[in-house]
């Protein structure tokens, strides 16, 4: 490791912000648990799951992993590659739908 004589100068954050985020994470986890508890179905379930998931992930990354305070150079380097993942997810959704379609068509329904 190189000698970072700069580290002494980095300011740390007030403890309050961490406690706040911590609390929020518990609340959000509780909410996403409630999604299952109340057995929401369909679009509502999915949007709630995804919203809570991204909120939680965002809070952890932004504050616990300090990304909120990092410079944009680092943040962008980390987030842009996710477009490749997004593309992969998007196409695999299309792919599994197609596979399921052919399986149902030829093995169950008949074509």
């Amino acid at each position, binding site marked *: 490791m190189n000698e970072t004589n700069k580290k002494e100068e980095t300011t740390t954050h007030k403890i309050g912000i961490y406690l706040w985020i911590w609390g929020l994470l518990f609340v959000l986890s509780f909410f996403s648990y409630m999604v299952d508890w109340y057995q929401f179905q369909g679009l509502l379930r999915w949007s709630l799951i995804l919203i809570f998931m991204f909120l939680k992930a965002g809070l952890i990354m932004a504050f616990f992993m300090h990304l909120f305070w990092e410079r944009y150079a680092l943040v962008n380097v980390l987030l842009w590659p996710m477009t490749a993942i997004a593309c992969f997810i998007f196409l695999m959704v299309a792919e599994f739908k197609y*596979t399921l379609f*052919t*399986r149902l*068509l*030829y*093995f*169950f*329904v*008949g*074509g």
Partner: protein
Amino acid sequence: MHPGIIFFLVILGSLLFHIFTPWYWTDIASNWGSMDDTITLTFWVGGGVFIAVCLFMIYCVFKFSYKEDRKAEYKPEDKKLEKILTWATTLGVVALLAPGLVIWNQYVNVPKNAIEIDVMAWQWGWQYRLPGKDGKLGTTKVININDENPFGIILEDPNGKDDILIQSDTIHLKNNKPVKILLRSVDVLHNWYVPQFRAKMDAVPGVITYYWFEPNKVGEYEVLCAEYCGVGHYAMRGRVFVKNEEDYAKWLDEQETFSDLVAKQKKLEFNKTELAKK
């Protein structure tokens, strides 16, 4: 010898080879002449670029080879030239891509009047199933496959009863009638490929894949497996006869249906038990 000359001879040789080669496409026997056309188009555009780039390089090698007293040009960038080249290339690429996409659209959309053929592949062989009078293929399951039911047809499916079973690697096709090849594999990946028809698609276990073509030349063709499928891959061959309407009908009449097979087997079994009784 100056290296430029050798490079020039290489380019010239490539060109001559292309013109005089005895190795080229087999005569096309399906409707996919448009694929050949796109290949030809790509050949013209791509080959032109290849030759132009190489000749320019050879020219530079001759013209600008090292001299003690000369100094190279100092020009880090030429925005205008780069812009022109980018746009020209983009244009060329679009010209190649557009016909490709159009033909692909035809490739994935099967005409309504196509006959469906179930091509079943295993390590290492082929067999075929044609729809009966109802024009529909019965559904199948791999676990149903056994000696009595070589195609694994689901017995409850009424569409399957009159399916015509061809337990051989040879299939006959009607000339000028589109066929939809439904590919099915019971074990590993295969690919039912007839070079003269140009089209191909993998057979994947667990799903049914498809492609279509319209044979348009009467004759006999060889089927090759084009997806590696184990040690017997190279020996996994089949045969296609493209026939005109009468010959095709005659051949079709001789084939047995699934119910024929079931009946025959029942009879066989009955005879066996009778024999045992006696």
